[in-house]
């Protein structure tokens, strides 16, 4: 990631909020609503928890790590 200023990170975080709001709502969520993956795991269950983990990782990078290195 580039050298973001405090304002840039603010915009990124607001963007993250809207992105998450979009993917965790219908109709996007319905794209992953049905079927099985990795054997017999439900796609919806896997999608939600994997993307949730990713989202937390990004929050960590943007809020915690980024601001500490500044």
């Amino acid at each position, binding site marked *: 990631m580039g050298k973001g200023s405090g304002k840039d990170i*603010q915009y990124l*975080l*607001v963007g*993250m*909020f809207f992105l*998450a*709001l979009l993917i*965790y*709502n*219908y*109709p996007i*969520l*319905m794209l*992953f*609503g*049905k*079927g*099985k993956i*990795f*054997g*017999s*795991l*439900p796609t*919806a*269950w896997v999608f*939600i*928890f994997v993307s*949730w*983990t990713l*989202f*937390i*990782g990004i*929050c*960590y990078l*943007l*809020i*915690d790590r980024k*601001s*500490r290195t500044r």
Partner: protein
Amino acid sequence: MSLDIQCLVIVLVAYFVLLFILATYAEKRERLKKSIVNNPIIYALSLAVYCTAWTYFGSIGRASTTGYGFLPIYLGPTIMAPLCYFILLRVILISKDQRINSIADFISARYGKSTWPGVIVATIALIGIIPYISIQLKAIVFCLDVLSGYGFKADLSAPIYEDKALYAAIILAVFTILFGVRHADPNERHEGLVTAIAFESIFKLVAFLAAGIFIVFGIYNGFDSLFEAAAAHPEAGKLLDLTEESTSGQSWFFLIILSGLAVFLLPRQFHVAVVENTNPAHLKKAMWLFPLYLLLINIFVLPIALAGIMHYSGTSVEAETFILQLPLDYNHPALALIIALGGISAAASMVMVAVTALTIMVSNNIFTPIMIRTKQASNLYISEFHRSLIGIRRVIVLAILLLAFGFYKSVSQEYSIVSIGLISFAAVVQFAPALIGGIIWKRGTQTGAVLGMIAGIFVWMYTLPVLNLIEVGFLPIEIKEQGLFGFSLLKPNQLFGLQMSDNISHAVFWSLLINISVYYFGSLFSRQTLIEAAQADYFVDFKKYYKAAGEYEVIRRSASVKSLKFLLSRYLGEPQVKRIFNEYENQNQIKISDTETASTELVNFAETNLAGALGAASARVVIKSVVHESAISFDELLRVLDRTQEAIIYSNKLEQSQTELEDATNQLRQANSQLKELDTLKAEFISTVTHELRTPITSIKSLANILIENDDIDTDQSKKFLSIIAEESDRISRIVSQVLDTEKAQIKVKNDSEGFQPLNLSNILKKTISALAPIAEKKKVKLGFTQDVEEATILGNFDNLMQIFINLISNAIKFSPDVDGRVEVTINDTGQSLLISIADNGIGIQANKLQLIFDKFVQVQDGAEGKPSGSGLGLYITKKLVEQHDGRIWVESKTGEGSTFFVVLPKHTQNAW
């Protein structure tokens, strides 16, 4: 399989003793200034008080009917986390600075430190949260019941003293009093309580994960086999996919909004996130650790629900108890006990924090204002208020828990944990417009906020609790079927005819829409008081105050230090007051004596400290009783503004005069160079004129001398000499009169059009030409005149016009060549004016002189002799005379081919008006 009831009681007591020891230890460390709570991980864990019995049991219940329908409640806070970071950071900094210690206090402080917003918020919180507390009691009871093998059957007929919920309520009340309401701390921080709930957060997570691991890996062979089995089951199989039928998109969306807001608006969440925060920097870790906690505690919810359905579908076992029933039935009572303890932990931590937060609100925002107002009338200083404040708070704790117990006895039995929890969420989101609006919009007023919240909570009440009361038969069913008073637009589940996927979405939509609208328009149509405007500015533009405290004070206050100390000790106790004053002295490096008058800063400092114990509104009322408040009166404010205004005007003036000065300098410079030029011209002119004069004077003198000295000159000779003398004298007089004409011309132009009369221009030209004909003839120049006009009348002065054309035509003749010279005079009609041109075929004028020849003293070289002839004033005078007649003159020329002078004069039309 069940557990022995005595064993259960012993374990429970041991667990609470452990909590007590932990909390006491934390408080001891706090006193030693070695806080264990000052730690981002503890802070994040304390936020997990969000996960209550609802998460523990309710989610599994909801998952068993809706599949993924439990998730929005945890996705909401996760999605909000990036925004929450900014909102909470600002709220925390403001709250620390103003000693705000509840959401009611925050909103009351924002809207002018007045009582009403606080009362409304505290009331809404009480109405909304008491049912929520009651379902925690319900969860504790069913944990005990399931463990002791009764199954969960509410025994309403049993006498009240046999009710486990009552004992649970009392134990929780004692615990809350011990850690939440031990003393009135101006900061309202309770490290013991925070330590206890952080521990409980770890415990409930570990217990829940243990349950999940046991069920998924103990009963089944991992996720794969569990999901495979579920897919084959007729009921469980339906829950694996996310479909519109299991959870509608609308409901999903509104649950995310609801939980995303509730996660910081719930009084207990506000309490742990803001009031108990020890360092705003901890937010950075909490904003990803807390969502991580939510993720971990939710991984096993769906698998446990599926396993439960596969085991108990068709039996009387309730879905909410699957997590306890499964280990018990697989003969793991110890695991079941730990899980139950985790569930009780979740419930107990919620109850303790929620009750503490509500107690602070109710005592600061409802009781204290009442007490201060009533006691103030009879006795200004209430003795020992400090002690009575603690007493009041303890009573409030007990009252809240007993109310929750009452609610549990009367209503909670009928509903699932989740449905009551959601109703509570919908109540507290009514704070959202006032709180979020309050920190981003200065214009938001108290009237708007209060009316918005009242409108919102009424819509909430009608669309949720009233609807539920109708459904259980407490209220007539007609209201739901036909609408209130028979108005079909007022059906509580289809307000204004709007049908939505579920009651919660419907209620959240309408209550928030109406709340926001009333807040917005109410604010636009009402005014802020001075203090409200000051607070609004502070909350919205917080950064500028944070850096420059005191610079933006708009209210001047003073009081005697003695009375201030006296007042404070009534409410906070002597030692606290000493500490506060010491702190102030240290901060400002000053010593304060009792006889002094306290400054505005000291009064404000005292008020913020008092606000910690009494709430912003009450602290203000109390301080007002001893403080002389001269609201930096509008006069003073205006004076400040005036001074600014004056400064601005002054600087504008300076700027203006500077430009004027520059202009003047430029003009002067120009004039100066003109003068210099003129000076040179004048010098040249004088030398020319004197030269011109000397020539005839010399010849006159020498001829006169000859006549005097020689007597023998014959008559013919002397006549010739005398005629030369006369000629030369004429020449001198001509030169002199031309010089005089120059001055006259300038005066004439000023007097402009006086004495003008209508004249026929072609007649004037004809006269001029005939007057000049002899000269032309003498020089053998052909003089031609053509006219292309019918009517050539102009307004003017006859003599002056004659002079114009004599000058121009005689010039033309003068510059014509000796051989084959021609001068052509023409008049043309151009409509509004007449164009006269005088063309010669002489030597022409150099291009660089064209502009100059009309200037004073400028002479054109006589091509033949290379010396000037004439005074250099002819054309200048001509130009002035033309301008006097509102005309224009210019020349076009080519060297060697001749020049043409053009004069334009306006026509005189007799019928112009």
